[in-house]
């Protein structure tokens, strides 16, 4: 599914908790928040407001607090 990026709620270096809103997407005429599934630190925001994203695109790269490796949150 394709979506427009309406809002980016986090920036590089932000500390986030599970459930925090990372992005707001628009698809199927609805606004769809993307919530963090893990707690950690935002390493990279891979999209900007106005971008058109496809299924499978990386959105926000998060370094998980309690794990050894980073993980993509989509």
């Amino acid at each position: 599914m394709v979506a427009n990026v309406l809002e980016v709620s986090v920036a590089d270096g932000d500390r986030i908790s599970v459930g925090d809103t990372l992005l707001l997407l628009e698809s199927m005429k609805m606004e769809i928040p993307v919530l963090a599934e893990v707690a950690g630190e935002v390493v990279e925001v891979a999209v900007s407001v106005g971008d058109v994203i496809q299924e499978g695109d990386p959105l926000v790269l998060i370094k998980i607090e309690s794990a050894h490796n980073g993980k993509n949150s989509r």
Partner: protein
Amino acid sequence: MSTERFSGAVGISRMTVRHGDTAIALGSGDVPVLGTPQVIALAENATITALAEHLDQSETTVGVHVEFNHLATSSVGDEVIATATVVEVSVKKIIFSVECHSGNRLIAKGLITRVLVDRVSFIAKAAAEALTREN
């Protein structure tokens, strides 16, 4: 009649949303925003534009398949631009990738398939079928 000459052709069509284009006016919904049938009509118009200069007078194309995502709403007064690009051709079939934008927002995206036909034969066949049904 080959479709090879259409490869890569691009067409653009634009509209400003009027009250008559809304879902409530079209009967396709009950809200006053651009109705999906009108978005598809605009996209189909872009496919026609893409082929126009490549068609012989005796030829035309007819729409046979539409696969469409209507992603975002447009209001009365908004300008919407559809872009159609031929992405695949086979013997008689032409497949377009179509995108509709309002400003920098992607509001719809999909695939439209058209088939190349002989204009006179097609119209004659349709008329003959109608006559047969009447009798």
